[in-house]
């Protein structure tokens, strides 16, 4: 049906399937874990679970290198049944809480991408077409109706639609030009509800509630659906386990394993963070806690998203709701107490007589003193990337929202980064849709500036640090963990500055003694 697809698919699935005995026994489509095989003994079970856990962990770290290797040994040796069972176990263990689930879903996506069995995910996707596999026990997504494009479709695509699809093909690494119809690429008609990510970014051709998608995009589509399916299934599995009676045999056997797997994961995450040098392992050290008197200086250490909000707030004396929320929670996370927050906003917002009525409630709410009385955590980068600003709004991630010249200007003006190499890297990452890496580059650049500059004359005056004597390539490649959270960014920068200050104090002390 989709004959052209496997050969033309982007580098997504490179390896060939090395058939092992167990895979033959597996029904087609079980790579997506629609059904669970009958249970094994606990010990076998546990060992395969831990193997999967560490493998996915490794995959995440080593992905770049692995992708270049010709063989995916660890995946090819993987026996099909253990694979399925360990998947279902991790689903139970990680399905429940949001951050565990996030990690697990990402890992499963990676595994699915790498799995040589999926010569073509599009082949699997056919399983969910109403035609041959309508009787699949649990369809991945309800009511997927797709059909091969009839001839007239190519006529409706004339003009802009055509161009758009060409662009789409180019992004997928397809170099063909000319008439789509003659290229023989099948098209599929998919209800727009199933391709939301592309709708959101206005990346496909929509007509009367349906998207027309070239079959080449199947890989991406299936991954997306798989993602949604896993999230739902994870929650459902965790719910079912939690309502099982606590004295039942099921609970007795599974609960310890679930706990153990979670513990293992958390231990691993902690050690990884410590290696990467983020500050969670240190805990929120008192030294980096931010209080109102220091705010004026600390503004220079804010990540760009917060820095721009501060500038906006100073210039206009107002921020719209989402902006207030983003900045307010960030300041709270940085250490401002409730009374400090209230004072800060009272001084910053114009229209003071409206303050108590309009804004104070919101601030107290953030600290868990109003409404449902739950202390709200600061937004993570992932959350802020989701919050796209409308007109007149300035929240969200500037590396995603600002166009290249505006971004460059902002980085130069507010972060005081002048290094041309860094600027180039930042704009390149931002332009290629990797905002968090762009932000990481900023952080790295600033940390390097701090470390190389004499204490006291830090980032606020970059002129004094002409050419940062960084150990050229070595330092450039030193991996800082990508920025995931604006508060981590702030803490890291402040800690660097403090360490730097104490270091230079120490040197001046020794000099004095000498």
């Amino acid at each position: 049906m989709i004959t052209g697809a496997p050969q033309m698919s982007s580098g997504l699935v490179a390896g060939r399937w090395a058939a092992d005995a167990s895979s033959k026994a597996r029904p087609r489509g079980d790579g997506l874990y629609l059904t669970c095989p009958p249970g094994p003994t606990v010990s076998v079970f546990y060992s395969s679970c831990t193997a999967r856990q560490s493998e996915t962990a490794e995959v995440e770290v080593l992905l770049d290198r692995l992708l270049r290797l010709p063989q995916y040994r660890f995946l090819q040796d993987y026996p099909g049944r253990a694979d399925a069972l360990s998947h279902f176990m991790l689903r139970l263990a990680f399905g429940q809480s949001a951050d565990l689930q996030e990690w697990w879903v990402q890992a499963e996506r990676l595994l699915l991408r790498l799995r040589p069995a999926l010569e073509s995910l599009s082949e699997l996707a056919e399983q969910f077409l109403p035609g041959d596999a309508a009787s699949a026990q649990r369809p991945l997504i309800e009511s997927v109706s797709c059909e091969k494009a009839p001839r007239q479709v190519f006529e409706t695509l004339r003009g802009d639609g055509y161009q758009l699809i060409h662009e789409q093909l180019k992004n997928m690494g397809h170099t063909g030009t000319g008439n789509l119809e003659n290229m023989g690429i099948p098209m599929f008609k998919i209800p727009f509800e199933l391709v939301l990510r592309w709708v959101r970014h206005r990346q496909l051709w929509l007509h009367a509630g349906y998207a027309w998608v070239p079959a080449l995009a199947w890989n991406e589509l299936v991954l997306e659906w798989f993602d949604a399916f896993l999230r739902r299934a994870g929650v459902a599995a965790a719910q079912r386990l939690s309502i099982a009676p606590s004295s039942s045999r099921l609970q007795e056997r599974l609960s310890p394993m679930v706990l153990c797997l979670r513990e293992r994961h958390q231990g691993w995450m902690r050690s990884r963070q410590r290696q990467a040098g983020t500050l969670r392992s240190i805990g929120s050290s008192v030294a980096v806690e931010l209080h109102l008197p220091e705010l004026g200086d600390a503004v220079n250490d804010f990540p760009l998203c917060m820095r721009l909000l501060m500038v906006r707030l100073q210039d206009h004396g107002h921020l719209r709701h989402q902006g207030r929320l983003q900045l307010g929670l960030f300041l709270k996370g940085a250490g401002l107490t409730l009374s400090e927050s209230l004072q800060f906003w009272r001084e910053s917002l114009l229209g003071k007589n409206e303050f108590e009525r309009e804004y104070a409630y919101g601030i107290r709410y953030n600290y868990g003193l109003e409404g449902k009385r739950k202390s709200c955590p600061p937004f993570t980068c992932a959350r802020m990337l989701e919050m796209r600003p409308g007109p007149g709004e300035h929240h969200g991630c500037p590396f995603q929202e600002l166009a290249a010249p505006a971004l460059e200007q902002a980085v130069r003006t507010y972060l005081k980064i002048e290094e041309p190499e860094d600027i180039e890297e930042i704009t390149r990452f931002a332009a290629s849709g990797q905002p968090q890496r762009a932000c990481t580059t900023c952080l790295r650049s600033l940390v390097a500036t701090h470390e190389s500059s004499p204490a006291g004359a830090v980032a606020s005056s970059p002129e004094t640090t002409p050419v940062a004597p960084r150990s050229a390539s070595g330092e450039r490649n030193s991996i800082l963990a990508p920025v995931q959270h604006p508060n981590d960014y702030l803490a890291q920068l402040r800690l660097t500055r403090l360490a730097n200050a104490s270091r230079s104090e120490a040197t001046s002390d020794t000099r004095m003694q000498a």
Partner: protein
Amino acid sequence: MRKRVCADSPQESCDHSDQVADEKVMEREAELAAVQALILPGLNRRESLRRYYAEWFPAPMIERWLADHVDSDGRSSLHFREFSFTLEDSDGSERFIRYLSYEDAATFAAELVRMTPLRYDIGAVYDANPRDRHRRLNKLEPMERELVFDVDLDVYEPVIALGHDTDNLKAAIAQDPLRACTENWLFIEAAVAVLERALREDFGFQHILWVFSGRRGIHAWVCDPRARRLSDEARAAIVEYLQYRAPLTGVGAAAASSSMSRAPTALMHPSLRRAAEILMPFMDRFLDQRPGIWFDEQAVRTLLALCPDSRVRETLGHALRRSHSADSASTTWRNMLQRLEDKRLDTDAALHIVLHLLYPRLDVNVTRQRNHLLKGPFSVHPKTNCICVPFTPDRVSSFRPERDVPQLIPLVTGDAASQQQMRACLEMMQAFVARLRGCTPPRPPMDGV
């Protein structure tokens, strides 16, 4: 006093009896109006609201519009639908009650009369009766909700201010919001035209109810069953799809100097190109309302900065300097575009100016979440006392809030013109609901009595 319409009689029969009633009361109307004019100026707001809800508010029509099916117990799905009221306390402060729900139109109408809310809002259909939410183990989950959009002229302020004296403008708006709304109705017309096409052609929706929000904006309620079932993520994606982001935005935008080069503009999505085509005629009107705009250096700089391509920007600036001062603003604009074409430059870059000025600016938060509340049709706007009446998209260009929207006090005190406006709006709503529920309207909409 005329005994009224749909509030207390069943849908189908009300039109006929209405006609008879109309004839009967005709001759007495003038007399009554005179008497009421004497009595009613003393009416306080509460009393006039009560009269409005009792005599004019079309509760059965609202029920028919909101409740699309009947459950196994023979009850309409209305009782899982959230309503909320904003009440005025005796000391003048406002109180807001959420999670109300009603069995049917009669109880809803009775509650409106009893509580006389300043305004009422409509929320989602939940998986249980919202009033029972504390008795349940699980949280209340929204199941269905119309896909709603909110366009408010407040967000257009920077654009409206272009080529105008800002201080005067603000004063004028504060003084008479309705008038300001009428003057800038152009933006609303443009928004309706663009959204109508996008929602119908791209997303395939059929039943879009447009409602004047009572002061400075409009709401759209997309009522197709498919739209009602959309998840929150789908709504977020749709509103994102319908949002235009200028290539140069944000804090640094104004500061970006013209010497900075930019990569050639990315491919323009067909929906944006279509929008730009729709908006072109509006651009002429926008410019002609501001005859001096090309002489206002500040405004020109802002406009040209919206154009992402520096060569196009320079050409436009050059064309502007060479234009005749006698030409109208729109002619100058056309000449500038012509100039671009002559030089075979990318005209898409100039379209970004049009899009930035006139593309609908949506309040995304209203659309994104199913449990977000939105003022219902035929609610009263608490500040202007305007009734939030529906209008049809094909008449949007002739719709003038100042003239066509009935106001609370004249309506209940028997002003004939207001009543006629109100009747026309009720008929419009009736026709919409009839189309939505798949039957023909009982009679064609009539103009006047």
